[in-house]
């Protein structure tokens, strides 16, 4: 078969198949993040398991880093709390502004003069 004929042949063969795989993780781009999603992200909760070393024999370094996180947990919680407070307040303000803009736009459309005849 010539390379230029392969795609058409593959499409025809695929069209005859009705097999499917079980649903699993599927990557999709996030085009526009919803306010609800932003709220979820704003409440920061770093997973301690993500603290690790990227070095080849980094297990002891990972252990030491996690110990450090453990020792500093009171301070880190304070940081998270302050950051989350800021994030959520900004988001609430943003959501309110979005609502306000939408209401103003609706009101503006309702007041718009009729088209001249």
């Amino acid at each position, binding site marked *: 078969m010539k390379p230029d004929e392969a795609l058409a042949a593959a499409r025809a063969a*695929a069209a005859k198949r009705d*097999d499917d795989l079980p649903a*699993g993780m*599927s990557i999709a781009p996030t085009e526009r993040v919803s306010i609800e999603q932003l709220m979820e992200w704003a409440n920061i909760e770093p997973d301690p398991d993500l603290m690790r070393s990227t070095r080849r024999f980094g297990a002891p370094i990972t252990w030491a880093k996690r110990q450090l996180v453990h020792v500093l947990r009171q301070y880190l919680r304070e940081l998270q709390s302050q950051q989350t407070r800021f994030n959520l307040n900004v988001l609430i303000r943003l959501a309110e502004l979005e609502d306000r803009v939408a209401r103003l736009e609706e009101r503006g459309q309702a007041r718009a003069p009729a088209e001249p005849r």
Partner: protein
Amino acid sequence: MNVHQILSGAGPYDAVTTQALAFRDLFGGWGWGGRDVAAEIDPRIGDRIAPLRVLHPRDGDVLLVHYSAYAPKLRGVLDLPQRKLLISHNITPARWFWDHDPQAAVVCALGRKQLPQFAAAADVAAGVSLYNAREFGSETVIPILFDPAGLGAPRDEEQPASWTVPERPTVLFVGRLAPHKRQDAVIRAFELYRRRHAPGARLVLVGAPINWAYDAAMRELAEELSPGNVTIESGLTREQLAARWRSAHAFVCLSEHEGFCIPLLEAFHFGVPVIARAVGGVPEVAGDAALLLDERDGESVAAELLALAVADGELRAELRRRGAARIAAYAPQRTARTLREALESLA
């Protein structure tokens, strides 16, 4: 002549760092001097790349800025009086990262926003592909310097007439384990192929993960869909990578965004048939030497193309012949000449 290379970040498995080091070898061969510096340095890179603060160019020196990510520290470079060549190495759109690596998403979003400013401040702004260059309105291309000699010899030539389908075909994808590379789709396409055509097939995914969590998610998916048939590897030496290529029967790339895609050229070098989604710089680099899917083609079509690419000896031979022509089109001597002309035009 002194050419100083400036990178956003430098790391041992980073394609841009590898490129900058290859350029430095070229410059050395041409009798040129200069330093290579980066705003962020992975300690594993050693002392070949110095911190940005040591950069003190003299009058008449040329600055080569490799732009691959948002780097506010590089802004100061734009104010230097020396003439500048900017090479954009492609920045993935942030939409692929928000869900999986927010920090990377921020860096990509800001990087894509900042790129036109850098391009405007450079005397010459180039992309590694025309696709990349056009993102900021340029038509200048300085491709990736690809030297197949460093990968070792390709495997022995196959004879189309006597080609028999291997019992355990190996499907390969090489590329960072990242959302836009769509390894999830590769796993699905592979599993469809395996179930329909080759129960003994195996898939090898080579590439460093963007983070631990994403790596774990991909391994879980592989285990769920095709238990025991998928291997995920990273941190391979050059020799190990070459061994993976030599044992591969097809290369499948279902990336949704690629600026250049060096593994295409690696596949052509090793004579491995390529199935790829026609996005970004892929059609430009692959030319007519790959089996390209368009946006309406799903994993089922990719699986059928894979079956053809593995089983059809005549098809494999023709793809190999066309792939060799693409390797010639990206010969390192040609790229080196293009780079040298661009830099000398600034001296």
